[in-house]
């Protein structure tokens, strides 16, 4: 099997290397990929959409269909993780572990419904896999997460003028919640972003994208042709494209954030949503 693998990999690699003889050299300005459609995008983007970042205007306007279905793909991926892994019945251990923070003693409670030590401040619930109490990591992450989320919102909102956009900002926003789940535990992440909320956000983001397209259709233009939104937004048709791109990017950001959290929560707790990694 190993020999077959080496042979197949070397053979396909050799064919591809042979094919590179016909390829343009590295960073050639006259390569075929840079000659046909991309100069048009670069030269017309300010004129047609008023978005200086060509990547954003191509992503959400010129090739809006592609991005819409990529968003649908990540929604479906999140849904598949949910369907494969999520378990709703509680199985196994009814006992729950608490840590007395000042002394570090672990307390095991068999019947936690009758005796939840919730009002006691110096107890914290811990996972069944023992983890040391680490105030440095917890404090640092608690300090970092708000700025991380602020930066994510900046990346989404400033995607017109600087590198950024819905995908990148959504991933950073999702990573901030994942960082909370890693540094504290899954329950404190779920307390901020519950299962119902992030499961709802995922289709809402996709719907914001598709709904903007459908609104353009209702207003008498093509699907995802944002200049139809001009009378609604009260701007001229070029700025309407810019604002339409922004609405769509926000939808992408919501969908990507929710999918990242959804996939992580399902994978880390094996679908039980009680204890993370």
């Amino acid at each position, binding site marked *: 099997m190993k020999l077959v693998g080496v042979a197949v990999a070397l053979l*396909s690699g050799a064919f591809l290397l042979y094919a590179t003889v016909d390829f343009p050299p590295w960073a050639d300005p006259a390569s075929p990929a840079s000659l046909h459609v991309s100069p048009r995008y670069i030269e017309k983007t300010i004129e047609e959409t008023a978005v200086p970042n060509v990547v954003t205007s191509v992503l959400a306007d010129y090739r809006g269909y592609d991005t819409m279905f990529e968003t649908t793909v990540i929604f479906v991926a999140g849904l598949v993780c949910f369907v494969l892994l999520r378990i709703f019945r509680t199985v196994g251990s009814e006992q729950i572990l608490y840590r007395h923070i000042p002394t570090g003693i672990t307390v095991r409670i068999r019947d936690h419904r009758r005796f939840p030590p919730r009002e006691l401040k110096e107890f914290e619930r811990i996972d069944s896999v023992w983890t040391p109490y680490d105030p440095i990591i917890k404090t640092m992450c608690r300090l970092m997460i708000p700025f991380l989320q602020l930066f994510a919102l900046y990346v989404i909102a400033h995607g017109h003028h600087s590198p950024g956009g819905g995908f990148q900002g959504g991933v950073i926003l999702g990573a901030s919640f994942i960082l909370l789940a890693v540094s504290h535990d899954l329950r404190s992440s779920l307390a901020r972003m519950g299962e119902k909320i992030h499961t709802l956000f995922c289709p809402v983001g996709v719907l914001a994208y598709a709904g903007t397209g459908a609104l353009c259709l209702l207003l008498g233009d093509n699907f995802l042709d944002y200049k139809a939104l001009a009378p609604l937004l009260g701007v*001229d048709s070029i700025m309407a494209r810019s604002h339409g791109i922004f609405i769509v990017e926000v939808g992408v950001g919501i969908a990507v954030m929710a999918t990242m959290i959804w996939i992580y929560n399902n994978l880390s707790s094996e679908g039980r949503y009680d204890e993370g990694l």
Partner: protein
Amino acid sequence: MSDFFSLLLSKYNYWIYITLMMIGLYAMIAKNNLVKKIVGMNIFQTAIILFYISIGAKKGATIPIIEHAHERHGSEAGSFLVQAANYINPLPHVLMLTAIVVSVATLGVALALAIRIYNRYKTLEEDEILSQIRKE
């Protein structure tokens, strides 16, 4: 011989991505552990992403964000000339931007399947799973 070396130097980006692709393909075919196969798949995807990004590069060009475009848009844009040779090709960047997020999503699905397989067979080694399936 110097011909060959100049060819190699002018196209070294393809050599890098083909080597990465071969590593990923080998891992997907020959590795016994399912997680290693998934890692191989990710290396393969990275090779494709690098290939696309390297296609978009242009000598002497900058990132595809039009400079000094804040103050002029809309009706004044007619007098604003943009030279396409000064900006790198944005199209591969757009395609790979979505491909990176989709690769993360497919990685999630692959890991979810691996977790289900582990819960059923209590192993992630391919030969042990196959022998268990044959026994049933």
